[in-house]
Each structure stands twice: as C-alpha cells, then as structure tokens.
C-alpha cells in the first residue's frame, strides 16, 4: 500500500461524495412518495389496482437493478422517434434522469412493502377511535394512520437507505461519476485497486454510518408513549432482502 498515493486520491474521490448524496437523496425522496401511493393502492379493496401494484413491486424486486437501469437508459434509444414526438427524448438522453428514474422505481418497490407492513401494524382501536370522534378519511390518514405507520416502518426504512447508498454505485455504469465511477477511473489509470478501495470504501462507510445514526435519531424522536400493540411479524424470506 502506497500512503502517498492514498492521500493523493482522497480529494479526487471526495469530489464524488456530493454526487452520490444527491443521487441518493433525489431517488429516496421521489421513491418514498411513490411508495406511499403504491402501498395505498395495494391495500385498497379494488383487486385490479391491488394486483397492478403487486405486479409492480414483484417485477422490480425480482430483477437486478442493473437490468432496470440499462432498460431505461439504453432501452429507451430503441423508441427514440416516439420519444422525440412526445418531447421527452431530452430526458431519456440524460444519464442522470435515467439513473434517478431507475433508482426511484426500484426503491419505491422495496419501500412500499415496508410502508404496507407499517400501515398494517397500526392498531385497529386507534383507527376506530379516530372514526368515533368524527375524523374524515383524509384526517384519519394524516393524523393517525400515517404517523403511526411511519414510526413502525422506520427501522426497516433505515436498512433501505443504506441499500440505496450502495445501489447508487450502479449509476457509474451509465457514465455518472459518483464515488464508484471515479474509483473505477482511478483504478483503470493507476492499477492500484487496494488504495482506491480503501478510500472509496471509507467514504461509503462514513455515509452509511451517518445515515444509520440519523434514522436512529428519528426513531428516538418519533417514539410515542403508546407503542403499537400488534406484535411485529416474524422475519420471513421475501423476494430479495436487498438488490
């Protein structure tokens, strides 16, 4: 290991940290919003809607993220004339848009399952109490169901955040120079993979450490006096705990 080289590449790799963070932040924000919608559609009584939502979740969790990214970024080229007519080709030409779109859809699929579990864990008594005092459906959701569900879903969502930080590295395969993209460029030019791995890895570990702490802090802040009374489900095998 060459310490001089190691110190030399720290600023170069650090330049990728904001890119990684922005990619993750955009995808997580959009993905969370979409996940809430998907979870609600899955839980509503119309079997057609619920089935479609389940299909979305199943397909995105059962295929690798890399396929999803390539399908959107390279695959859209096959429909260029159509996309140009629609005026959206400028979007699909842009690697950043494609990366955020793929990561958003992917995290939405995983997160919707987490939110669904959270919504289902809300004690029925709380919902009935809300109805009893005359809350509308929207009020009930905004004031009772959603806050309780989010609190319950937070630990699992913390995991999802870490998985997204790792997943954002795949954006490097479609030319985006975030941490992993820069790392690959340096390795290809210097043939010193160990030093690059140590520095890039340290950045990822630092990001994940901060993210873990932030989620734990949120859990602490949102802890309510009356924790949900329904027992959490036992861990089961699901279609891929991670990507």
């Amino acid at each position, binding site marked *: 290991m060459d310490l001089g080289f190691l110190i030399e590449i720290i600023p170069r790799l650090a330049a990728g940290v904001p890119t990684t963070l922005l990619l993750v932040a955009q995808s997580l924000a959009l993905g969370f919003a979409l996940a809430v919608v998907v979870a609600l559609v899955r839980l509503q009584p119309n079997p057609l809607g619920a089935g479609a939502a389940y299909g979305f979740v199943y*397909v995105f969790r*059962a*295929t*690798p*993220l*890399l*396929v*999803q990214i*390539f*399908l959107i970024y*390279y*695959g*859209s*080229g*096959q*429909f260029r004339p159509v996309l140009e007519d629609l005026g959206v080709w400028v979007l699909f030409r842009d690697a950043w848009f494609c990366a955020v779109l793929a990561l958003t859809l992917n995290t939405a699929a995983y997160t919707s399952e987490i939110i669904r579990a959270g919504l289902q864990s809300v004690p029925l008594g709380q919902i009935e109490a809300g109805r009893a005092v005359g809350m509308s459906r929207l009020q009930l959701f905004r004031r009772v169901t959603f806050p309780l569900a989010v609190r319950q879903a937070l630990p699992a969502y913390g995991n999802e955040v*870490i998985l997204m930080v*790792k*997943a*954002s*590295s*795949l954006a*490097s*395969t479609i030319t985006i120079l975030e941490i*992993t993209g820069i*790392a*690959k460029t340096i*390795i290809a030019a210097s*043939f010193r*993979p*160990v030093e*690059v*791995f140590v520095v*890039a*890895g340290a950045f*990822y*570990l630092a990001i*994940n*450490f901060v993210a873990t702490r932030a989620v734990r802090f949120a859990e602490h802040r949102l802890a309510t006096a009356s924790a949900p009374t329904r027992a959490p489900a036992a*861990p*089961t*095998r*699901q*279609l*891929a*705990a*991670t*990507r």
Partner: protein
Amino acid sequence: MDLSLLAWGDAGWGDQMARGAVVTILVAIAAYALGVVIGAGLAAMKLAPLAPLRWFAELYTTVIRGIPELLVIYLVFFGGGTALRAIASGMFGYDGYIELPIFVTGTICLAVSAGAYSAEVIRGAVQVVPKGQLEAAVAVGMSRPQRLRRILVPQVARHALPGLGNVWQLTLKDTSLISVIGLVEIMRQAAVAAGSTKEPFTFYLVAAVLYLGLTSLSNRGFDAAERWANKGVRRA
C-alpha cells in the same frame, strides 16, 4: 420489437441468451456455495471465545455489507491478478504472467458479499439453538464433532433456511454485476446482442424476463425446502 431476433441457431440470439442464463445459474451456484462456507466460518469466528477472531469477523461483515458490491468486484478483479502474481513469484519463483479464469474471479467477487450476509444469518440461527441441548449432549458424552453433526447442524440449517434463501436471491441478482468484468452471462450477452442488433430494449427485456423466471423459480424451490424442513415442527 422483432421477436425473430430470438430465434434459435445462427438466425437469432435465442440460444446465446439461453447459454448466458446457464452461466448465470452456474456462477450463482458456485458463489452461493462458497459464500455459505465463508459465512459459516465467519459465524464460527463471531461466536469464538478468542476476541481477535470476533473482531476480524465483525470488521469483515460490517465493511462488506456497507460497501457497494461493484467496488468489491473492482477490487477483486483488478487486485486479484496482482496478488496472484505476487504469490506466484514470492512462493514459487514463477515470474510469468498468470491470471485467474474470469469465471473464478466472478465467483470470488460474489462469494465475498454472500459470505458477509450469510454469516449474520448463520450466527443468528446458531444462537436460536437452546444451550441446554448442547449441555445435554456433553452430559451423555458426545464429542465435539458429534455435537456439531447431531445437534447443531440439523437445527441451524432449518433456522437459517429463510435467511439463506434471501442470500441466494441476492447472489442471483448480483451476478448481473459480474458482466462489468466481462463474464458472458445474461447481462453481457444481452449487451452484445443489443449492440449488434441495435435493439437494446428487446434484449434487456429478455434479460429481465430471464431473471424474473430464475428468481420466481428458486423462490418456489426455497418454499418447498422450508416446508420440508419444518415438517416435524409443532405449530401453535
């Protein structure tokens, strides 16, 4: 979309894609098997009385699980050859150029991650086995290997099955990342076909369908395995 592109033989890419799927399955199985062995070793270290062993295993699982698989793949791919040549010249005095077959490199890359994830699963499963059972085994005079074989392994296997199923799904999907180092599995084959036919969507869609089929099929397999393993378990 032109489906005649998927014809078998020289006319289409059907047979090449199928061959890619076979490579994906093989590399996934090899990496999974190696990963479970690594995971069992790490789990043993995590439960070992010797502190440095515990520290090493803890460090390994924390680092590998917190770092993107792609970065690990680059480390093994670019660093593996250098390490191999250093060992060859240092220990055997061989200074020629050698490198590992791409299949082996890919397997190691994936097994590194699979090992970290399965270590947690196996450790959790070992801790579920009641201590009294092991004490009883000691009391009737079983040796260490006997205790392992008769008491620990059968129960750990059952408890670890759902978690190990997750690791399998993860490994199967991670094989797609190996395409970046040039192993001709589903993704690589799809990229080659997409490049030569100018129909990327068609071939990445085929790739997606293949992965969907493989994950669904193996999910069924693990469901059956869990039913079989839990046959004798009383339910409340």
